[in-house]
């Protein structure tokens, strides 16, 4: 394994169509990690603006959303993103798909808020000074200019996650994928971040364990043991999921099964 990658061809032509409808098409997609099957037989067309993903721990939710930005590639079936096969789209995906992780401490790379936001802009080719001033302006439009010079490590959990979301949004993606972004936040921070997310023009795919987060969503996927158990509008899928949870809870509680 070479340490430094060779730069691929200069002037690579863009292949993705950011406005493609549907933006993702799954044809019998399966994924194995270390010979263990994590996702099986997914066939889906993603077009909606607000899509939720639910399921128990280990159901494949995180792996599923990682397929959307190229962090994982299918081991079988066909996946196309933004109108082209995923393997072709991969180099362009970070500019079209913003990804927010569960733990902001794992995402924020830079010591201060301004540098963290500016990183996305330098990634897109701005020089250092320009990125910094645009980062400041961007923070101001979101009412966060007061945070610009603060060290990220000193922010509250809610502020940290907000900065991680803004750091991704500054790259102006078409799709925002969030993998349990509210897990470590208190109720107030959760509600603020949720309403901010709902006001965004971006399409959103949200993984969450808190079913109340899906209010106003268009479509929910329920994953179970790597398969699509149910797919439909929130009121139907969430009701079925709750009923299934109740049955599981009433069965004899076996800690081992957690």
């Amino acid at each position, binding site marked *: 394994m070479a340490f430094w990658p060779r*730069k691929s061809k200069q002037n690579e032509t863009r292949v993705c169509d950011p406005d493609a409808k549907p933006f993702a098409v799954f044809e019998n997609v399966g994924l194995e990690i270390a010979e263990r099957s994590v996702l099986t037989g997914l066939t889906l067309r993603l077009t909606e603006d607000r899509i939720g993903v639910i399921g128990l721990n280990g159901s494949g939710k995180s792996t599923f959303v990682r397929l959307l930005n190229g962090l994982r590639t299918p081991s079988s079936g066909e996946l196309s993103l933004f109108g082209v096969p995923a393997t072709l789209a991969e180099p362009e995906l970070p500019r079209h798909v913003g990804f927010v*992780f569960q733990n902001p*401490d794992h995402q924020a790379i*830079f010591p201060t808020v301004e540098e963290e936001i500016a990183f996305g802009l330098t990634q897109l080719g701005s020089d250092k000074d320009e990125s910094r001033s645009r980062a400041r302006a961007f923070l101001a439009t979101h009412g966060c200019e007061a945070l610009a010079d603060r060290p990220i490590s000193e922010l509250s959990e809610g502020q940290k996650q907000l900065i991680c979301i803004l750091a991704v949004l500054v790259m102006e993606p078409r799709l925002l994928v969030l993998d349990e972004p509210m897990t470590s936040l208190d109720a107030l921070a959760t509600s603020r971040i949720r309403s901010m997310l709902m006001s965004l023009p971006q399409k959103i795919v949200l993984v969450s364990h808190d079913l109340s987060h899906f209010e106003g969503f268009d479509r929910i996927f329920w994953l179970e043991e790597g398969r699509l158990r149910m797919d439909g509008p929130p009121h139907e899928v969430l009701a079925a999921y709750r009923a299934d949870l109740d049955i599981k809870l009433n069965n004899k509680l076996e800690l081992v099964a957690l």
Partner: protein
Amino acid sequence: MIAMQIPGDTWAHRLPAGLKLVAVAVASILLFQVSSFWTLLPCLAAVISLYASLGRQGLAQLKLLRGLSVLLACLLALHWLSGTLLEGFAIILRLIIMILAANFVSVTTRMDDMMAAVQPLFRPLEWLGISSRKPALGVTLVLRFTPYMLQVFSMLQEAYRARTGSSGSWRLLAPFAIQSLRMSDHVAEALKARGGSDGLTR
């Protein structure tokens, strides 16, 4: 967090970092030619007056020599044993002058200015098809990982103490490495999700 720089904005802070680096390089070459005790003494006075010009905080930096004193004393003792005491004095004087001069640049230059000053040296990497941003990004990652790792270690120590009553010692090193390595995988994933270390301008 972790810094050795004197905060403030003195004449020495305002000099361009590149100029200061060149000055240290020239000084080390010139000093290499000097072996006379009587030429070295005024040089020492000059370098100490550099620190003095920064005021009290500057002079406080000379405590650096205290850390070196044991090592320097040992070296002097070795010279004394082999009967080259005078020569030893001159050599140690020259070491002290050079260390103080180089340290002066470090305490008056912010790390990002220093990085910007040496950034052009990485330009040749581009010829090999390697992004010259990589070293700078590597520096950022190290400065971000280090305090996090100390935090992980103290958390492990607490958990160990809670269960055993004794502090963890080297036994914690392997779990510590495993936990921090997991974190580094998350960071690698997050970096890739935002376009990776080469950026998206290709």
